[in-house]
């Protein structure tokens, strides 16, 4: 079992490396766009701020490429190089290439530096994660706990199960930005209720106050974003688990349990729930990478500085080091989540066996 786990872990690490390498190579094929976006904006009609001739433009391109580290070949092999007379022919570029430089840096724990800001990518990602993880982690935990409670109640088909199901289906149909803006307009709007702040974490959260004073501020600011994320994740988890529970409650062993005189709640909790959890575990595998990836919609709506916004802006600006670093983290989280799901599935149903 231990050996199998290690083998799976190794496969996961290889898959993360392959994924990050793929993203690195594919994104860097768009190096020209990164060079273009790193130069003064063409829509800005400055006095004489731009290269006004083709030759000047080429010089500027060359200097920008050099600054971004895009002036060396992309990979160990390639079809063209500047000094080569015959383009289209495969040849060996040697070790000084962009991929090799990135890989060596990665092995030393360096993610590179951002094209836009010149900051270390590692510290920027860490900074964003410190905001994202409490937000998404709290929302995911709340969503899972609420789904567990709600699904067990709904599976027992009380009188109110139809309207609640209907509400959950309606909630699932709503895009996240509608939920986020709806919460803002209801609970942070002077025209309605002014219970919560309208945007992110303002400076009060950083003020030189004790933890006891800061905590209420922090919770106050995080309530609406966490609520938006929880409400968006809740319906899918609840409806899936409810359906699975209902199916299990129709099985023979549930009928036997009832015949023994067990109450419906006990049948659900002690017999049906564990069997019904298997499909929900697969949903958790989806939820976990989202913890790291952040929720760009909520971060934008509530002006929160998280991974979602960081990566969306990096993609728009072709800031490849930040983008590839983020993909590496999210990819690792996703593959580890799959591994974790497999382990949880083993726990939920010991009849499941791992195969090589």
């Amino acid at each position, binding site marked *: 079992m231990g050996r199998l786990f290690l083998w799976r872990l190794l496969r996961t690490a290889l898959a993360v490396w392959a994924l990050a390498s793929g993203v690195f190579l594919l994104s860097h094929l768009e190096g*020209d*766009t990164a060079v*273009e*976006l790193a*130069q*003064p*904006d*063409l*829509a*800005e*009609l*400055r*006095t*004489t*701020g*731009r*290269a*006004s*001739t*083709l030759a*000047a*433009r080429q*010089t*500027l391109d*060359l*200097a920008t490429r050099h600054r971004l580290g895009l002036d060396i070949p992309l990979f160990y092999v390639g079809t063209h190089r500047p000094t080569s007379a015959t383009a289209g022919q495969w040849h060996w570029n040697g070790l000084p290439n962009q991929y090799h430089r990135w890989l060596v840096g990665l092995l030393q724990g360096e993610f590179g530096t951002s094209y*836009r*800001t*010149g*900051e270390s990518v590692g510290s*920027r990602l860490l*900074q964003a994660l410190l905001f994202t993880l409490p937000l998404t982690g709290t929302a995911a935990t709340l969503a899972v706990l609420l789904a567990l409670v709600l699904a067990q109640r709904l599976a027992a088909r009380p009188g109110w199960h139809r309207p609640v199901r209907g509400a959950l289906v309606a909630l699932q149909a709503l895009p996240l930005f509608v939920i986020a803006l709806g919460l*803002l307009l209801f609970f*942070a*709007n*002077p*025209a309605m209720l*002014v219970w919560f702040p*309208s*945007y*992110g*974490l*303002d*400076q*009060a959260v*950083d003020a030189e106050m004790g933890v006891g*004073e800061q905590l*209420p*501020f922090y919770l*106050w600011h995080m309530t609406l974003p966490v609520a938006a994320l929880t409400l968006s994740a809740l319906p899918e988890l609840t409806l899936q688990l409810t359906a699975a529970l209902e199916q299990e409650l129709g099985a023979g062993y549930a009928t036997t349990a009832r015949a023994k005189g067990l109450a419906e709640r006990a049948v659900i909790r002690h017999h049906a729930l564990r069997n019904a959890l298997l499909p929900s575990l697969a949903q958790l595998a989806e939820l976990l990478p989202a913890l790291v990836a952040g929720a760009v919609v909520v971060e*934008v*709506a*509530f*002006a929160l*500085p998280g991974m979602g*916004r960081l990566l969306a*802006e990096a993609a*728009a*600006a*072709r800031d490849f080091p930040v983008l590839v670093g983020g993909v590496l983290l999210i990819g690792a989280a996703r593959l580890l989540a799959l591994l974790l799901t497999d382990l949880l599935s083993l726990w939920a149903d010991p009849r499941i066996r791992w195969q090589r």
Partner: protein
Amino acid sequence: MYRVRQNFLAGARLCLAIALLLQGCTAKRRAEAPIKIRWAHDPENLDPMVMANQTAIDAINLLNCSLLQADFTTNQFAPALAEALPTVQLFGDSLMRLQYTIRPEAAWDTGRPVLATDVAFTLKLMFCPGLPNAGPGGQYRFIREVLIDPRNPRRFSFVCTSQAVEYVQASGDFFILPEAALDPKGELRAFSLAALQQRPASAPPNAVLEALSRRYAAAAPGQTPARLPGCGPYQLVKWEKDRYLRFARKPHWWADRVPHRPFVLQARPAQLEYAIIPDAATASLALQRGDIDVFPQMPTREFTRLRKAPATRANLNFYTTASYDVVTVGFNTRRPALSDALTRQALGRCFDAAGILQGSELGEGQRTVGLLNPADRLNYNDSLAPVPFDPAGAVALLRRAGWQRGATTEAGWRRNSSQGPQQLRLVMRYRTDEQLFATIALQFQAAAASIGVPVSLQPTESGAFSMALRNGEFDVYVRALRGNPFMFNFTPFLHSQAIGAGNNTGFSTPESDQLIAAIAAANTAPRRAQLLRRFQGLMQQEMPLLPLFFLSNHIAAQKRLTGLHPTSLKPGFAAMAIGEAAAPPTAP
């Protein structure tokens, strides 16, 4: 029942306690609150050599000073570090000498005076290899030499390679950096400005320049501006990425000693905080609640809604100014079907600029005949009329251009030319992140379809749009060009030399090239105005670009704020001049 009531009362007490606690904290915060201004995005990089975006320029402007700065009360450059506007001396037919004297009060935070050597050092820094100086390096190449007065270390002259009148103001529009912070031994003084400008990229590495480049990289002014402190009125106190930047007024800024301090040297707020709120709806809520004080560049619809609502009218002031951002359509003149002016003129008549302005911008904005703002009365050619929306006229123009309409609607327009048969079928690109462009594209598509010209729309992501324009992968595009009242050099985007660089339309004629060169070299304002008027006429006739209208700039601010000085210049108001009206006395 009793237990439920007890629980309810306990819960209510807890809520009340939390509410009182938050209320107390909020009240405490308000008393010390800085003036809060909304930004849509983080400036990302505060390097004065990079000036990555408008928010970065606004922030750098608080930290640094230049010789001349834009005066928002007059929309003209006014002396800041310099005592006065430069004196101009012309030599021969191409050289110009601009003499400046730095104010005697001007000093760095260390107390060291700002000297001509700092100005020369900053200019040389723009051409040092290994620095992120591509932007200013291209901009200030016209200054060939800095001559420092041996009798007065605060007096110097720029020797310029052109007598263009716009260089007089442009020569003072860059932030001066402290030589002592980066080059304490003055090693860069051994290099002349011209030598650095002419230094080829393939030149062997120089130890002095490499050491300077390393020191600049170590200072990392883009992220830690305090390591390269400027002589501006504010210092960066805190920068939380994607959240806020807070600036505090220097307690002893050098300009405080300037007698009769001019507007450009005013710095009234003790603290300024820029809150990064990407979503406009969220920012609007924050403004209505008083969480932020100023909301510049407010979307037109939200601005109009708030201005009409009685509740917000009581608490907020609303300002509208004309901006220098012009929504422009471009035609790819390299395409055979669009290579003649008549066809472009015909297609230009399919844009309902007035209708779009009314529908999308609620009538706010100003139609224009060219790239110059109608507010610029000297240079704007008011004898021309804006291109009308006239599909019938477009059909007549297409026929004059040699196009013949097919028998059926699907057949479209065809013509025979020396390059073979042509069909008028267009691809229009616009950026996906701006609803206005989509509206314009859809209106054009419908109008063109009504006269039998098929147009396929290609909404394009921002980065891909830039590349498509650069590579000429479009027939027609629409976008906004961000101008300013000081820009009269059209070489980078309409001259034949710039085809493949910034001239995306590929347009050029010998006449337009000559006119652009003459405007750039004009050494008097009246002469330049005469040429600019001719240029606008020529552009309307040739129509490689069709400027539709200038957008408006909307600002909403709390009523207690005074002295915003709304202006057409970016960022649209004077943050450093903002004051607060005294609170009305409270009833005893």
